[in-house]
């Protein structure tokens, strides 16, 4: 089967989307962009192909009416991938212990590291049996990192192998581990996953078929900040403006205005009935009000990025935040907290400040037409969405606001559709 690939090398995350010949999404992959764009593109693409093969499998199994077993197989597959990565991380950390830890503490440190990794593996294995495992980050560094930190806290010895020592080891080793190329593909792990999941006799033929299904990328288009790094000819590179415009059009064909708030930029885009961009504006000179701004605020408040929105939503009296300079906002935040103002009210104000900046760009790009589609990582934040709904209604009246749960893939989706259009032309 020939397919079409779009890759969006963003400043924070790298996304890949695989389309089939009919333009249906076969698979999607996401990873953190790290400092290595080439590898991030590889990982995201591999992940997208893994999910494409699972999709093929799903289609086959749906026909054979046995899809209940698939969830377990997918979890087993993820577990196999995770175990490979944990193995590499552990090996690297143990080397680091030998290299960098004081001789009299080495043994104790090695033991603690082994203990942590034993528990990590056990926790991962427990997820296999949980049909609805707790949500966590898509990225190895975050998923493994938060569990590692928790376990390190539990077993650290303040007079010997301290928490700081253990965390220091993780921080030193995660970057090289993350930047080593690794085979995480379908064929590498599906065999073991089948064995581990057990009792999969009825899906085995379909798995075989999915693993061997020819999945040829007949065209690939790249976009995003790192696009110049992609080893593609110029005609296979599209700006993220065009890709977001087309991606939003594919998700919601009635789209005329698109707002995308990503890690380091905010884009206001107008598109015509075919998803072709007619006008756009982006933040210049300053990236305050973008995703990283919220990330910084989350760090300042010692919260996870995903906790920020829900907390802000509970604010009853949003506080007016005068500055949207990221660094100054941190200062303002501390000032407000010291004045005894509520965290949720301050956060509600910050979210409104982010959206106010976006409103100014939208106005510059030509306003908000119906329908209005909101994309990018920040579209996942419920407080940002609420602030946007309020400000759109105040400034432009009733507008249909579209937000897709998969909006983070909008750029990659648009790129994949450009690849498909190019190949069909």
């Amino acid at each position, binding site marked *: 089967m020939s397919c079409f690939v779009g890759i969006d090398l963003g400043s924070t995350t790298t996304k890949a989307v695989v389309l089939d010949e009919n333009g249906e999404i076969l698979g999607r992959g996401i990873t953190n962009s790290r400092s290595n764009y080439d590898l991030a593109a590889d990982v995201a693409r591999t992940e997208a192909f893994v999910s494409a093969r699972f999709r093929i499998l799903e289609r086959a199994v749906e026909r054979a009416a046995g899809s209940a077993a698939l969830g377990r197989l997918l979890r087993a597959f993820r577990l196999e991938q995770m175990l490979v990565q944990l193995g590499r991380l552990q090996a690297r950390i143990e080397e680091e212990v030998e290299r960098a830890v004081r001789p009299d503490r080495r043994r104790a440190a090695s033991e603690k590291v082994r203990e942590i990794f034993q528990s990590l593996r056990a926790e991962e294995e427990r997820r296999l049996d949980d049909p609805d495992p707790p949500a966590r980050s898509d990225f190895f560094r975050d998923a493994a990192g938060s569990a590692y930190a928790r376990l390190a806290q539990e077993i650290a010895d303040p007079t010997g192998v301290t928490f700081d020592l253990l965390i220091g080891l993780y921080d030193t080793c995660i970057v090289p581990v993350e930047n080593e190329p690794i085979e995480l593909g379908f064929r590498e792990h599906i065999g073991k996953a089948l064995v581990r999941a057990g009792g999969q006799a009825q899906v085995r033929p379909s798995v075989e078929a999915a693993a061997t299904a020819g999945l040829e990328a007949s065209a690939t288009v790249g976009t995003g900040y790192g696009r110049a790094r992609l080893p593609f000819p110029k005609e296979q590179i599209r700006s993220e403006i065009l890709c977001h415009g087309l991606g939003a059009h594919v998700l919601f064909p009635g789209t005329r205005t698109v707002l995308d708030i990503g890690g380091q930029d905010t884009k206001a885009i107008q598109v015509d009935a075919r998803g072709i*961009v007619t006008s756009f504006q*982006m933040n*210049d000179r300053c990236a305050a009000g973008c995703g990283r701004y919220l990330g910084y605020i989350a760090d300042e408040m010692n919260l996870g990025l995903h906790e920020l929105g829900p907390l802000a939503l509970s604010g009853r009296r949003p506080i007016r935040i005068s500055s949207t300079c990221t660094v100054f906002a941190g200062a303002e935040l501390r000032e407000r907290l010291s004045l005894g103002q509520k965290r949720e009210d301050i956060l509600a104000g910050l979210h409104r400040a982010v959206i106010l900046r976006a409103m100014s760009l939208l106005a510059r790009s030509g306003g908000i037409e119906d329908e209005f589609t909101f994309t990018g990582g920040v579209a996942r934040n419920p407080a940002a969405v609420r602030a946007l709904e309020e400000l759109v209604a105040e400034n432009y009246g009733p507008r249909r606001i579209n937000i897709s749960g998969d909006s983070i893939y909008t750029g990659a989706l648009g790129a994949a559709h450009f690849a498909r259009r190019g190949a069909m032309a």
Partner: protein
Amino acid sequence: MSEAEKDRSMLLQKEMLAAHYERLEAAPETREPVVYTFVPGNLTELIRAFGALPVLPEINALQSAMRGKSQAYIAAAEKAGHSEDVCSYVKCDIGMSTAGNVGPTGTRLPKPDLLLLSYTGCYTFMKWFELLREQYGCPTVFLQVPYQADGSQTPVQRSYVARQIRETLIPTLEKATGRRYDEERLRENLARSAAAEEDLVAVLQSAKKMPSPIDAYFGAVYYVGPIFSAFRGTAEGVAYYRALREEVEERAARGEGPATPAGRLDRQKWRLVVEGPPNWTHFRDFWRMFAEEEAVVVASTYSKVGGTYDFGFRHDPSDPLGTLADYCSGCYTNRNLPSRVEMLERYVEEYRADGFLIHSVKSCNSFSAGQLTILREVERRTGVPGAFIESDLVDARYFSAANLKNRLESYFQMLEARRAGSGT
């Protein structure tokens, strides 16, 4: 660009500029009087009629920036107390004068005998000369040119400007230079201006051809150099514009495009109109971003800041003071927003542009105020899509190459998608 890729006219201009700066350096010995003045509304013919040499501080600033010297000058001015938000031309000039007043080509600039401010819409120019007056303790003269709020000059405004020239400027110039006003000499200068203007307009309008033999923004910066600075009304100016016109006409006859930092641009995929001054600190890198996309600029408003000639105005020797009044009133910076919109609209249509771009400059409010309105209005009237990018004149801190390139790439791809979509 290597020397080999430069046009003959560029080399000629380089020689002219070098000679001018050398003459300025020698002025204290040769006792040639020196008058500082600004490009918009400059009265070079009148200054030259007194045998005086003009110095144009903003030209020095931009020339310094093109030679990579502006950042140190700006830092010096900021150290002396000028805010980060002050016009970067001003700071570059102030920094240069505190560093020994060494001009962009390495020669020393003479002190002014007079500061002549022809006020044509830029308030900062006035504050700038206040600073220079403090520094040099020299006389200042102020020509008040009424802003063209209604889009045209009234007869009263015209005679008001001419009367100031006659009653204030000329006596001040006589005193500062120690020479008598010679109207015949002024008329001769004005006749030479008109000849050069005729050739300049032919050069700028050659961009109506496809492919265009010139780049009417990046290239035009060179073309307008002599006429906007010290050479209007001079024999060298006339010779330069004659040579330039011949060069461009030859190129047009061969069907060739202009030389650019990315090589000769014969294949021209996009024809653009540009509003706003360029960035000078990364002038070639900025130009390259266009040339590499095979985009040629066919008309720009910046190439009219020192005089708008393409709608028919020529200096008229038969009415020397009246014609100077007309010239000052018609400067681009002295025009209101509707006239600027109209001008851009005409350019987009007459030069068959695929798009138009606003380069907004952080430190120039005169230019930047209202540019978003201009963008929307020109888009509405012409149906041609506009783009908006921002950097600065001579302050390199505000030139973010990655972001500008990203915007421009997106813009060209948008034009491409629209062109493909419309089936043309």
